[in-house]
């Protein structure tokens, strides 16, 4: 089962706190490697709080942990800015220098494995 949502990114205070401890800190990683879903959406794809989900857009995909909250309405999802989220976005800036990172259409489903660790992301980035 797969759902399509509108994906929003942004900063959170927790991400800020973690970032200031350090990018390699666990608190930072925990602060950015999740997606916020409405419980009803989670139900539709059969995932619970803490499950791993696969998020994909036209431009790429990533795996993150799932967090549930009524703060986010069904049909939308929030993912904090960071190295997990950045794989989802189109680098095309349309003459502005800024890629579109808010309001992107994304598909979400239960993931096979766990989300990658920061080390794994790094390894992949280095190629």
């Amino acid at each position: 089962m797969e759902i399509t949502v509108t994906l929003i990114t942004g900063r959170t205070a927790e991400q800020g706190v973690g970032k200031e401890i350090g990018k390699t800190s666990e608190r930072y990683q925990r602060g950015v490697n999740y997606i916020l879903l409405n419980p009803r959406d989670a139900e539709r794809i059969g995932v619970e709080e803490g499950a791993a989900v696969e998020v994909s857009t036209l431009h790429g995909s990533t795996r993150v942990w799932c967090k549930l909250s009524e703060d986010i309405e069904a049909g939308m999802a929030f993912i904090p800015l960071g190295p997990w989220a950045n794989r989802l976005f189109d680098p095309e800036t349309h003459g502005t220098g800024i890629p579109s990172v808010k309001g992107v259409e994304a598909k979400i489903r239960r993931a096979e494995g766990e989300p990658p660790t920061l080390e794994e992301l790094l390894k992949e980035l280095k190629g």
Partner: protein
Amino acid sequence: MPVYRSVVCPFCGCLCDDLEITVEDNRIVKVRNGCAISTSKFLHHHENRVENPLIDGKPVALEEAVKEAAEILKSARRPLIYGLSSTECGAIAKAIELAELIGGVVDNTASVCHGPTILALQTLGESKCTLGTVRNRADLIIYWGCNPLEAHIRHLTRYSAMARGLYTSGGRKDRYVVAVDVRETRMKRVADLFLKVNPGGDYELLSALRAVVRGYGLDVDEVSGVPRDVILELAERMKKSRFGAIFFGLGLTQSEGRHMNIEAAIGLVADLNHHTKFVLIPMRGHYNVAGANTVTTWQTGYPYAVDFSRGYPRYNPGEYTAVDLLARGEADAALIIASDPAAHLPYKAARRLAEIPTIVLDPKRSMTSMISRVVIPTAAAGIEAEGTAYRMDGIPIRLKKLMEPPEGVLPDAEVLSLIIEEVMR
């Protein structure tokens, strides 16, 4: 045990300057008045540090790292210097000088946050004020596409919704507060009116408000999910306020429409000035991203995305901006200062940083430092080094030096000076 008062917080664009920091044995042990992020920044500033200059991950002497960096930059045809929003102005000035010297491109992180704000300003201008003017006068405050509770934590109490001032001695109760966002954030609890706008629908909503403020009717039932009556009422409230302020954030700049969203907001505010006093203030993220734009502007005429390849400054976001240069595979070397693009830029751009020789100046380890050819640790500005930073509203404030940096670690500006010397040699 030295206690520093009126310390400036080098985290976000608020640049709160009332912190009290206690330093013991060259270690910060106590932070008063800081928000959660600020406290984390001060208390953990010594963690996850880059301990040594590195080349390909191996520790080297500073001179060697500087030499390697200069060599990389000198031989590059399209070097990119990027970051600069979390360091002090002296470093920014040096980065520009270096870019000019090597015929490179200098860009700062504004290009992926409030770059659109600047593009819009360059088309229409802006009506703004310093935060104190909002504190003292605003009886209507609108937060649009921004969430100070997460990103500018003390903004509400120090400068805006809750702050008491000259004509607002009642603080929060003297004001009407509106929040506009695509999802119900915690700001809903702060605001008198919360408008949920459809994602990507801000431009339409702002345009509609603008038309209504101009006295036109609205012949649709709703705009971007907001009912017509609500729009008419908000427009009326804006016109009737004595001093109105709109704060906006990345919810406008990074979503569909980008700079055009900001143009719509600027236009709305300009029109409102025919009825009352109204201002618009961007919520700048990094503590000195405003400084990066300010310094770059006075030195080159342009705020970001400045290309020196022809010997004189040229400006064109979308062409000389970091994301574009990297994603198109143009940049053939990069110098990243106080920023972590590998973690935040779209993957394709981040990937390019790993492919080319990249140099990083940062106090702390980051995704970028871990994929870079050369890493040079620097002193943390505002903690281990002083300098100027510009608040989100353009007010310059002096960052304090509270303690010595680790042995042999220099401030960004000094490392850049060394690289400049080496390049000129």
